[in-house]
């Protein structure tokens, strides 16, 4: 082989034969094809049908339910709407994470008439920025929605912008068989919890399964400790940026957490919630604080063995009646193409009929409509619905109750820092407060 004379000639020879076999034209065609494929995957690219005009029979729905099971449930609910209304629904399903990451561009571009979203600050934020349609008139027609759900659907201006469809509580999950075998009792106070955990340790179990590789599960621990120590209103104010993170109240939360950390599964920063849930499933850990979706990691024949209790009381003056129970649901675009049809669809997804379809097809979630026929619930679902029903206040989870930029760029690294080095609470809270001041400016 002769020596290349120029750099270009040299580089040309680096192309492996497998690639060199392709002609340039076919490469270009391939690139164009890939581009087209990518293009269709982008949210902004999909605006729905431009049928236009009033009296149209169509409405478009943006869905983040990309997993097979929930996707199937949505399809069945939409089928129900199509049969009852005679309208056609175009469902535009996008991968869950992509949907969330593109939501800003999506809502400012050509969003679908109706789109799925979450209650809480995330909903209020877009409502306040004028990116969501007012649904107050629909709320006049909805029945079976509790006041708590109405409150969670209301924007800063007092109007409703959200129709709840499903929710799931966070609690301490455990396997009945393990607890029966060892004679464990559900703890009612923090002291009882630590005593129980010590017993579990003696029995060779990891007392509390724990994972925070993805950054968000630890938010659940912070939330529940904050709710138990300082109460719901403080949670709301802290998340809204009105309370200082350097206050003694917040330090007390971290302090309590520091005391509990030795009872948690070690090395949590390298573990996903699925892996932690499997340690509970394999009877290696005693309990696990997570949302109801933890049941996904259990086989069908183990579902009956799964049980839970709400996180015990810490301060008797505050009690144990508040909890995290994030609500999922639907919103309307600020300027939908088919406003009338969109409202009909929204009314339907909030109705008993839609809830009944969901109950029949999805055992991993609870429906928001209280009139729904819940006889199809599993024992676990029934208990979860009872728990939420008896709650005095329902929080939406840290990253749904505060600004997304604050939750993801400040709180996630901060909580991971705390888990790594629980000693320096003062330094940690000062750092959070400094960043908070820079972010909560408007």
């Amino acid at each position: 082989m002769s020596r290349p004379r120029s750099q270009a000639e040299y580089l040309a020879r680096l192309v492996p034969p497998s690639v060199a076999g392709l002609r340039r034209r076919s490469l270009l065609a391939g690139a164009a094809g890939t581009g087209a494929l990518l293009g269709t995957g982008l949210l902004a690219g999909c605006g729905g049908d431009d049928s236009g005009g009033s009296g149209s029979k169509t409405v478009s729905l943006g869905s983040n339910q990309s997993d097979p099971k929930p996707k199937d449930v949505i399809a069945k609910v939409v089928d129900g709407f199509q049969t009852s209304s005679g309208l056609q629904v175009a469902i535009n399903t996008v991968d869950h994470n992509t949907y969330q990451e593109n939501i800003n561009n999506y809502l400012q571009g050509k969003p679908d008439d109706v789109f799925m979203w979450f209650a809480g600050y995330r909903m209020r934020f877009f409502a306040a920025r004028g990116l969501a349609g007012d649904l107050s008139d629909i709320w006049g027609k909805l029945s079976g929605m509790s006041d708590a759900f109405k409150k969670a659907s209301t924007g800063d201006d007092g109007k409703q912008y959200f129709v709840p469809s499903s929710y799931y509580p966070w609690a301490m999950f455990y396997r009945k068989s393990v607890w029966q075998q060892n004679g464990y009792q559900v703890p009612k106070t923090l002291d009882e919890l630590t005593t129980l955990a010590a017993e579990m340790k003696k029995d060779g179990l990891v007392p509390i399964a724990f994972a925070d590789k993805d950054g968000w599960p630890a938010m659940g621990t912070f939330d529940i400790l904050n709710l138990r120590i300082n109460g719901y209103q403080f949670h709301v104010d802290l998340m809204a940026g009105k309370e200082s993170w350097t206050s003694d109240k917040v330090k007390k939360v971290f302090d309590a957490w520091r005391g509990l950390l030795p009872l948690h599964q070690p090395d949590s920063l390298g573990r996903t919630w699925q892996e932690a849930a499997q340690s509970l499933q394999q009877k290696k850990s005693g309990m696990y604080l997570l949302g109801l979706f933890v049941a996904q990691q259990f086989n069908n024949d183990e579902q009956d063995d799964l049980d839970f209790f709400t996180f015990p009381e810490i301060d008797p003056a505050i009690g144990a009646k508040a909890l995290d129970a994030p609500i999922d649901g639907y919103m309307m675009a600020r300027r939908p193409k088919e406003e009338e049809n969109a409202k009909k669809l929204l009314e339907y997804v909030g109705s008993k009929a839609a809830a009944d379809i969901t109950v029949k097809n999805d055992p991993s979630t609870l429906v928001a409509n209280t009139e729904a026929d819940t006889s199809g619930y599993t024992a676990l679902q029934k208990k979860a619905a009872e728990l939420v029903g008896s709650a005095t206040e329902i929080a939406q989870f840290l990253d749904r109750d505060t600004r997304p930029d604050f939750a993801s760029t400040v709180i996630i690294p901060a909580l991971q820092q705390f888990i790594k080095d629980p000693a320096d609470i003062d330094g940690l809270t000062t750092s959070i407060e400094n960043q908070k001041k820079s972010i909560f400016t408007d």
Partner: protein
Amino acid sequence: MSDLPLVQADRAVPPPAATTTTGGRGRRLRLLSRTDRVVIALMVLVPLLLVVALVWLPALATVALSTTDWDGIGPVSEIEFVGARNYSDVVNIYPPFVPAVQNNLLWLAALFVVATPIGMFLAVLLDKELRGTRFYQTALYLPVVLSLALIGFVWQLIYSRDQGLLNGVFGTDVDWYGDPDVNIWAVLVAAGWRHVGYIMLLYLAGLKGVDPSLREAAAVDGASEPSTFFKVVFPVMRPINIIVLVVTVIESLRAFDLVWVINKGRNGLELISALVTANVVGEASRIGFGSALATIMLVVSLVFITVYLATVMREDRR
């Protein structure tokens, strides 16, 4: 490269313009037909427009946005100017920034000091035309074909604390991806695994191109293998060495996929590129703050680009 007879032969050919008469402007223009001129104009203009629109404008917009606190929502007229606040925030109150810079430098050092020499060494071995050399070549080059995202997934199966291969085989419980003192090294092994294959291929191609007569001459002079390599082959491969250097720098600056797949570049795996993404992409939408981070990265890259261009241009002038 002045020692090369081939290049000198090229230069010895007198430029064609000298053979034509000493015509002025008009004469030279006639060498190109109208179509030629249109084609040339298009060939210059189209890429120029593309580069300006897709590279320069976004880069300038990034620099401009880094002085605002835009959250990506609402018209451009509502963007508020905050001066250098984003930069002072990055340096003063943003805890992941310093580890990110350190990790980027560590990444560069590890690829440069460890992975690149290993790649070179493997290339030299494979150049010996061992039996089954094609098999080794393919095996070592395979990771380069895979995307870094996929590599992250493959290594996840090896590194997982509870269910991974490594802890399973050795009965240890090291938290490879979660322990911030360990994970950057674990990730560097994965990144280096890929980089070695890349460098190996570059060097292998270079070694194949070295004039065999040079080695023969060295052998006749009684030079040992190592000294033939270090004193004859290595210096002759100067252009490849520069490319390898540049590739290594670029690879370490654009390192991103791997840490993003593992834990979104948090908890010990901070990289500037991951911080930019975490702030700009997704729900966070701190466009202004993220742009400030991106601008810092741009400045760092510019230093390397300038050094490279200066070297290449000096080479051309000789």
